[in-house]
């Protein structure tokens, strides 16, 4: 009984690790990279937002594209 419980525990841990890794790779592939967002201001200046802001832009843009089909 103890051995079965031990094996179940190991299996559970392995499944959890696989799930975490999968999530990590999925989110990193969707991460905004340099040049993904470019803004031209009304004064003519060109701006590239910080990575956090760029990520926000890309996440919403992805939703827009998803809705637009």
């Amino acid at each position: 009984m103890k051995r079965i419980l031990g094996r179940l525990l190991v299996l559970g841990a392995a499944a959890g690790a696989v799930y975490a890794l999968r999530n990590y790779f999925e989110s990193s592939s969707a991460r905004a990279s340099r040049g993904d967002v470019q803004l031209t201001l009304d004064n003519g200046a060109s701006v590239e937002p910080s990575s956090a802001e760029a990520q926000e832009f890309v996440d919403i843009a992805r939703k827009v594209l998803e809705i637009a089909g």
Partner: protein
Amino acid sequence: MAEGGATGVGGLEGLLENLRALSGEVTTAAVLSAGGDLEAATLPPGVDRERYSAMITALAGIARRTARENGGSGFAEARIRADEGYVLLVSLEGGRTLVTTTGPDARVGLVLYDMRNTRRELEQTSGNGASAGSETGGPGERKQ
């Protein structure tokens, strides 16, 4: 409002349809009011207009905020690339925004050029309350 086809040609939707016809890479086009309402749009059937409108309003809001944080009073253009394609924003007079979406392989420079031309026509349309004038150098002038 147009859904996948031109209705009210000569008005806002007609101009958006012209833009879509000219730039074959444009999948959807919309004009957003300063208050975040969808004034006109060319969307395929089945698209949830409210969700689409909410998302592009959010995008325009972030673009304005980012522009202010970087010393501007607003943005003129924004280009956002995602895996699925591009979302392009061009600011219009009075806080309105012209938004288009394209596929991932679109020639974005060309689409932005057509959007700039359409902007003039859209501003004229809203200024006159009538259809666009003929001297605008609008999107109809570029041959495909």
